[in-house]
Every structure is written in C-alpha cells, then in structure tokens.
C-alpha cells in the first residue's frame, strides 16, 4: 500500500481511519443516547444520524455551529474506507472469495440502510372495529390540507407541508384561486375559547370560528406518548388583496371553511395522509394476555382487504411479526387502543426492504465459504501429515 504522504488517496485505505471512525461513531451514539431525553427518538435521529454535522446553537445568538461529524458523514466515509481498503488490499483469488462476498454483503448492508433512511416512510393506521380506512397517517409530518368540497363527486385536496408554513412567502397552486400566505405557525399549541381567557388579545382570524378562539403556543413535546398540536393562521389573498385569515389547527374537530367565487374549501391542519389504492376494514381484534398479568401474549387484527381494481378481496390476519405486505407497503401490528376496539397498524413503505435480507445472505455465504475453505485446507494438511507420519511401533529407518 502506498504511504499516505505519497498518495492522499491512501488515507482512505487506512485501517487507522477505520478505527477512528468507529470510535467517533461510538461517541456519536453515546451522545445521541444521552440527548434522547431532550429530543426524543426522532429528533435524535435527525440531529445526530441523518445529518452531516451535529450542530449546536451559540448561546444568545441565532447561529448554529458544527461541533461533531454526523451520521451521514461518518457512515459515508466509513463506506468509502471499506471500499477503498478492499480495492487496495485485496486481490481476487478463489481462496479469498469468501472474504469478498462478506465485504460485498457488508457494503450492501450499509448502502441499504442509507437507502432506507432516504426512502422509508413510517405511517400509522388506527382503525376501529367495523371501520374502513383508506389512508395512513404520518407519525411526525403534518400538512395543511385545503380541501375543495364543491364538486359533488369528489373532494379536491391541495396538500401543503407544514414546513412551508414557517416562511413568509405566499404559497400558490394552480388549483387554488388565491394565494395562501402564512401569518403565524406554532408547532404545538393549545386552544381555549375566548370567554375562558378574557384578557387574551384579539384573534388573528377574520373568518370562521377562529375569531372566538385563543391560541396559546406551548413547547414542543418529544415524549413518545404525547403528540404536538400544530396550529397557525393563514391569510388568503386574492387578486385584489386579502380575502380572509383563517385559523388552522390539529385541535379543531372540524376544519374552517371558506367560500370564494362560488367554491368552498375546508382548511384542515392534520397528520400527513397517504391515501391507498385499497380499503382496509377491521373485522375483529383479539388481544390475549398471559394469565394473571397485563403482559400481552398475542394481539392480532383480522382485516378485510379490498383493492380498488377489484383484484383482491380477502380476509387477512395481521399479528406480531407477521405483517401484511401489499401495495408496496408492510402493515405491522403495532398496538391497540380504546379498550381493544381500535387497532394500531404501523405502515412502512420501504422500496429497499429486501436489501438487508440479500446482504445477510451474502455475508452468511461468504463466511461459510471462507471458513469452509479453511476447514478444507486444515483437513488436507491433516491428511497429508498423517500420511507422512511414522507408523507407531514400526521399524526405524
């Protein structure tokens, strides 16, 4: 291997670099684990692992400063290191084919996990017994759904990610005859009626029921058993200026409505929905526990699956470790609520879900080949050795 000072590329083949990267990874995982108390599991993933650098805010300012390499950087360099070392150090021979396969499997595993981070979508589906659902909802992402209900046959939905509500720019879509201008956005808030807070300032809303509601921003929660209630105000602007300002909130049981030019829209701030080309009806939910305890032994959902194209209409039982895979999604039995009358399914959409299986198969095959070759060589040496060894009790030469 050429020395690093002669060939900078040789740095990437260094085993020392591998060790340093692994040590940094240990520190990163430790720090993230400690910080999970403050940020929650999703916040930690975004800050420490799905980032190139871990940023810390400079106290008293709005500036963020990178203080440590993030997961993307460490993982990316690690995979380059692995490939480079492999190219520099190893020359292909049948004796090393097992090592080759094992490394290819390892690289594929790393790449597959990266693809999962990039492509995987985790949603949930809560269905009451007897209820039919055609969409799943995101755990973390929210949307402002502007739903035109004018047409008798369908609702036309324009979905605006809540990330866009934090800016000042007007949002425009060809299907909307007005510009949606964010006025205020709170990731978490509570609502009270105005009569409950007599001294509250006037509402920003000029239409709907929002002018009788007081919005109080509250800190974002990261606790796994709590949910945030995103809330905000958006101003609708027509060709000649502002038309109305409406309150949007995940806490509103019915969204605000707005009528303009003979068309009516509802403004619903809600968990981001993923509509499915099929319907799932929960027919039965069973929940068994170990006798004398509250520990679940088994819980299962018996669902009826009906695809819109009419090709599928069947009853499926989803239970722990036995997901339903359909329509590019996997439906796992994740939980239950409402005294066992509501099932909670985790809906995972991950086009790269097969890669870890292939990776593990390659690693297993590589290890079997490598150890097999060693074992074969060992037996050959042993056989050869026993063939040349003097026979006990035989005549000395």
């Amino acid at each position: 291997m050429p020395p690093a000072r002669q060939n900078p590329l040789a740095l990437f083949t260094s085993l020392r670099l591998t060790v340093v990267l692994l040590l940094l990874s240990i520190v990163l995982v430790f720090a993230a684990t400690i910080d999970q108390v403050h940020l929650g599991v999703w916040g930690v993933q975004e800050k420490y692992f799905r980032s190139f650098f871990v940023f810390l805010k400079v106290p008293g300012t709005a500036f963020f400063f990178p203080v440590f390499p993030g997961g993307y950087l460490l993982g990316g360099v690690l995979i380059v290191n692995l490939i480079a070392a492999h190219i520099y150090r190893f020359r292909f021979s049948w004796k090393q084919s097992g090592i080759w396969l094992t490394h290819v499997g390892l690289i594929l595993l790393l790449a597959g996990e990266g693809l999962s981070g990039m492509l995987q979508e985790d949603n949930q589906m809560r269905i009451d017994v007897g209820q039919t659902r055609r969409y799943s909802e995101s755990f973390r992402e929210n949307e402002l759904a502007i739903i035109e209900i004018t047409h008798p046959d369908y609702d036309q939905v324009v979905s605006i990610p809540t990330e866009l509500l934090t800016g000042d720019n007007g949002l425009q879509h060809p299907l909307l005859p007005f510009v949606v201008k964010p006025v205020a956005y709170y990731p978490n808030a509570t609502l009270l009626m105005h009569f409950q807070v007599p001294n509250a300032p006037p509402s920003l809303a000029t239409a709907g029921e929002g002018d009788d509601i007081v919005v109080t921003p509250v800190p974002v929660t990261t606790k796994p058993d709590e949910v945030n209630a995103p809330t905000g105000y958006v101003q609708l602007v027509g060709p000649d200026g502002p038309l109305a300002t409406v309150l949007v909130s995940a806490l509103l049981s019915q969204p605000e409505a707005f009528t303009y030019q003979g068309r009516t829209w509802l403004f619903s701030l809600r968990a981001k929905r993923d509509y499915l080309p099929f319907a799932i009806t929960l027919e039965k939910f069973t929940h068994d526990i170990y006798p004398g305890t509250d520990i679940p032994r088994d819980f299962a959902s018996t669902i009826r699956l009906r695809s819109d194209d009419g090709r599928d209409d069947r009853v499926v039982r989803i239970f722990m470790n036995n997901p339903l895979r359909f329509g590019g999604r996997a439906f796992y039995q994740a939980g239950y609520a409402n005294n066992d009358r509501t099932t909670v399914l985790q809906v995972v959409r991950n086009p790269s879900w097969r890669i870890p299986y292939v990776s593990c198969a390659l690693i297993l095959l590589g290890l079997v080949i490598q150890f097999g070759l060693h074992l074969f060589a060992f037996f050959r040496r042993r056989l050869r050795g026993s063939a040349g060894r003097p026979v006990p009790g035989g005549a000395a030469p």
Partner: protein
Amino acid sequence: MTRLLLAGVVSGLAACRDKDITAYRIPKDPDADQVQAAPAAAPVPSASPAVRWVAPAGWQSQPATGMRAATFLVTGAAGATADVSVVSFPGMGGDDLANINRWRNQVKLPPITGADLAGQTQGVTTAAGAFVTADLAGDVPGKGATRILGAWLRQPDHVWFFKMIGPSDLVESQKAAFLSFLQSVNLAVGAADGTPLAQNLPGAANTNDLPRGGGMDSVPVQSAAGASLLWQAPAGWQNQPGNAMRKGSYAVGGGAEVAITAFPGDVGGILANVNRWRGQAGLDPVDDAGLAQATTAIDANGLHIIVVDAEGGATAIVAGQVPWNGGTWFFKLTGPTAAVAKAKPAFLDFLNTVRTP
C-alpha cells in the same frame, strides 16, 4: 444503536425528500371511513367524539365549519332564518354560569350570578346523556326580539354545544323540533348498548356525514412553481421587492404603483374582473353589451391583453389581463388619478413588452 448509526450512510439525500405542494382527489364515497356493522361488544369509551343525529324536517344542512360539527339553517315565515350549530370542544368548555352568561350576552341580557343560575337552566335526559338546556330571549339592536335555545352535554373529554339562535317567533315554533333533535343525538361514547352507530341511522338523508373519505384517485397536477411571463419595465419604475403575493411590483411615481399577479383559471371572467376594477375606481358596472366600450385590447408578442381604463374617482385603475398557461395574469396600474394619468402611456408601452418565456 447499530441501525441508527447505519442510517447515516450514503448522503443527505433524505433531506431532499419533497416538501412540495401536492394535489390529489378523494372520491366522495359514503361507505368509506364509516362505521360499519360489527360484532356486538361492550360499551367502551371512544377516543373520537363521533356523534350522529337526525335533523328535523325542514332543517337545511350547511357545510360544517370551524369548531362546528354541523350547521343547519331553519327558515320561517317572511324569509326569517334561524341558525342551528353543533359545536364540539375539548375539555370542559366552561362552567354552567359561564355558558349561560355567554349566551345571555348574545341576546343582550345582563349577566347573572351563580345564585340565579338555578332558574336559568333545565335538564333533558336522552339516550346520549343528560343535557343542560337554556331558553333565553332578549332584544338585539338591529335584529329585534332574538331567542336562543341552547343545550350542552358534557363528556369525559369533550363538551357538545347545541344551539339555535334566531328571531323569537321562529325559534319558539321550532322548540319541539329542537328538543326532538337533542333526543336523536347518539354519541359513540354513550352508545348504551354498544351497537354500532351506523345501525342507528334511519337513512343517509339529512343526517350528518362524518367523517368524509374515500378511495384515492390521484391526479397529477402541474407544479406550483409554474413558468412566468416576461416583461421589460421602464427605467423610471422602481422595483418593489418583498411582496410575496405578486409576480412583480413597481412604484411608478406620485403614489401610483403597478402590481403583477397571476391566478389559476379565468378568475371569474373578463366581465367580473372589469366590474371589480370599475367598482374600486368608483364607476358603475357594465353589462356584456357595455364591455366592449369599457375595454380595449393590446396584441403583444402573441398575447391578447384586455385593457381596462377605469378612471373617474379619486382612485384610478388602468389594468390589463391576459389568459396564459391555464391561468390569468393581471397587470394593474393604480393610484391617485393624476399619477395614474401621468404613468398611463408608459404603462401601455410596458404592456407591449409582455411576452411568453
């Protein structure tokens, strides 16, 4: 841990997940997301405040809005109308005194104290639970004798408010209907026999329809960031950045400005737009016959721009509108009459520079 670490592989492409505005259609399928027939089960508390009722004949259902789960319009003699609302609110929704005084205020009655509360409310027991009801009549300036029939029903984590407000005579005539409406209320939380709600529905007609849903019929639509028309503004105009509503904005002197906006569709049509501008300028509207006289046209670079000259009041408007790329683009010069008159030649020259990309 390992899985978390491995998630860092490849690149920050995950951060590139689309945060764009999207659009899709949902068929109005009455079967979807509705509670269907299910095996009988013990009554249990429900996390969702689902509710069903049967509205009396003659009550016209209106779109649900805001905090309202339902709105009905009740029409009486001589076009008098009363408003019926059903509102769900998380929490306890204030105590009885606060509720009564809120409604008393709406019919301009003075507030009462807790000592007087007993005579102000009654109780009505239904299958859904025990309602507290109130019948309040007052005199509202501009509206005359006004009456409220109200009721609230407390649930563990929600309060349901049912209220009819309108002219006293009409509300009085609807009192029996309102009480029967309360009797028909069926809360998922309070379904005493655990029977699925759908079985209690006598029919789809005139009942609320919660929630809405249906199968997906995804329709691709054009991107929000569409192409833009191009133009050449005169050197003397000052670009005014920072207005997110506009495609362009210029100060043209003397307090007049040019605003460029674009909206999908025809935005009501040429006549509606012309009359809107004429109204803003203090001019009378025109009809189809008068439209030709009120407008001129500029053919610029293949675009047919309709120009409106609405000058006559303290504010003058000269505006051009042109359909393009599925939308309508507006170029509007507005301001004090003198300033607009001065800027008008340059504005018309400016319209001649408008072109497609």
